[in-house]
């Protein structure tokens, strides 16, 4: 297998969707998948703004790795409505080692393509991307 770190292309769609989320707030979340045969990162799923965190968590498979962008809305201590863009590297413990390796080595290059990520999170099981964890990371 070729050097995965430099070999993985990023489909244009990924960047476009991300810019829509950042500028026009048309999505709540975006889930990206690495398509091995085409050696690309593609958009697997896009979520509407009305969807909640539970819907987002449910759209991540329990035994495969993914990358995800989530737009997290919260209220700060001074009572102002704020939102932060999270990049979540979802690598569950039960996923195949090969899958984890490919996602881990391509992560950096992919992140550099998406300009405007505020917080990065790595989750190996559902408890690590719980709402409490997101809330504690925004401070």
């Amino acid at each position, binding site marked *: 297998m070729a050097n995965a770190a430099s070999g993985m292309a990023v489909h244009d769609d990924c960047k476009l969707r991300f810019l829509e989320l950042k500028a026009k707030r048309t999505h709540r979340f975006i889930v990206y998948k690495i398509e091995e045969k085409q050696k690309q990162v593609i958009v697997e799923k896009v979520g509407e703004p009305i969807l909640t965190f539970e819907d987002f968590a449910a759209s991540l498979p329990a035994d495969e790795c993914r990358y995800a962008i989530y737009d997290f809305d919260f209220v700060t201590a001074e009572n102002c409505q704020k939102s932060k863009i999270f990049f979540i590297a979802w690598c569950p413990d039960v996923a195949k080692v090969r899958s984890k390796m490919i996602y881990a080595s391509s992560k950096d290059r992919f992140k550099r393509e998406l300009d405007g990520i505020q917080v990065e999170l790595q989750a190996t*099981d*559902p*408890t690590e991307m*719980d*709402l409490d964890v997101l809330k504690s990371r925004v401070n």
Partner: protein
Amino acid sequence: MAKLLETFPCVPSTERGRGILIAGDPKSDTILYCNGRSVFIRSLRQPQDVQVYGEHGYAVTVARYSPNGEWIASADVSGTVRVWGTHNGFVLKNEFRVLAGRIDDLQWSFDGLRIVASGDGKGKSLVRSFAWDSGNTMGDFDGHSRRVLSCAFKPTRPFRIATCGEDFLVNFYDGPPFKFHSSHREHSNFVNCIRYSPDGTKFITVSSDKKGMIYDGKTGDKIGELASEDGHKGSIYAVSWSPDSKRVLTVSADKSAKVWEVAEDGTVGSVIKTLTFMESGGAEDMLVGCLWQNDHLITVSLGGTMSLFSADDMDKPPLLLSGHIKNVTSLAVLGANQKTILSCSYDGLIVKWLQGVGYSCKLQMKDTKIKRLAATESSIFLSGFDNKVLRIPLTDNEFGAAEHVDIGHQPLDISIAVDSPESTSLVSFDSGVVLLNGLNILSKIDLGFAVAASVISPDGKEAIVGGQDGKLHIYSVSGDNSLKEEAVLEKHRGALTVIRYSPDLTMFASGDANREAVVWDRETKQVKLNNMLFHTARINCLAWSPNNRMVATGSIDTCVIVYEVDKPASSRITVRNAHLGGVNAVGFIDDCTVASSGEDASVRLWHIEPQ
């Protein structure tokens, strides 16, 4: 959210052959004692009212209130003294490394500015006196060659410090800056405790040579001794003065406490009253600690029972407070009306607690180390470390005689089929299970895999055995007491530690050593609730609420987490720091109260409010 309802605290940790020192605050009528790494503050008026300070990194030996009642200084086996506030969440004022070894006694000066600490300094300084806020040393304390067991500060000016120790010496220092003044070798054995009278005119030393000596408070000369007729027949471990400086209370290894009247000039002390302590008749009745506070006389026995006598009416039977000394390994909840909680610790002590009341009664098993406890309304089954399964019948307020059966292997887990006609129980050991009827072995089955946890359904027809590899094997129990394997469920990624059926038998829940718990549907064998991964270390215990809607898990990470079966695992209620050192057992008392017990030898009751 979770709120602490009640604590059934442990009692002071005791050691055979040594006295222990307990202290108190006359103003708020509380006493202080230590167990493990925690200091317990207990109110004498409301013995249920307990607060715990667990910030020491090593076992705590002694704790004392400052004279104004605002600060507490506590010392541990590493030679560290911590000064912290009584109110305001025990905020730490200062921490000093005072001696190189264990600290045995600590006292404040009457103005609250100085502290003297004594103990084992490993050859270097054995006693140190320092300022409470800065830690500056005041004076050299030479003169002792071995461990200094006790020290006392004269409560009136001019300042004097008296110390006594294992080298049979009683030393007297004047100052400040403190320097050696005189030494006395009146005792012929370890001098265990030294205390100044509250008016500062005399001090008394008591020793393992069964004698007590009285000295002048200002000069340190011996002026008298406690009368030997009607005196103690065993080592005297501790002494405490009455607030009026006229009487003293001593406790001894001869299982009695004596109240003496000390003459004005201090030449002689004569016995006024002897209080004997008789509980089990064995070595546990030896009295090792005492305190005279306001109107109360408190004595502590080796077995951990604290007796509260009234000083005015010494003939009145005392109030007995007891509890565990060692960590509580297992817990069972019984009782339809008034809930009883049975807790057992590995040293063979079973204690019965009543919700709302506290300590009810206890049973000390001799020479048995208990691992697990399972109970029905009429009897308790225990599994120990010596291949035995014991049964103790339970009547209203008492424990009956224990009978046992040897099952040939060390038992791991024990579970009772409460609804089966003859009280069948299942005991698992490292390679199989044993089916018991009462105490008769029905069958011993070798299952061929490494067994970790097991449970039998209340009607005795189905059993689930979990293996070290994380697989759950479901068996049906047939009439000839053999097991037929029905299904194998794989989901856990670590050795199973506990499996429990829900009260309505539609579900069962299992927890493993990899911090995950799973709720399964019994009929379909499908996972009902997963992602219960919120603990950070091995799950030790699990319990169902009576209404089948909640599951509580306890883990070594000191948390108890309550999940609701209908809601996703992320909406959970966490009780953090339930027990310092880890939670060993949980049980539901009713639909919103959970009892938990752990390494800190206490049992706590929490009120859970479902969101």
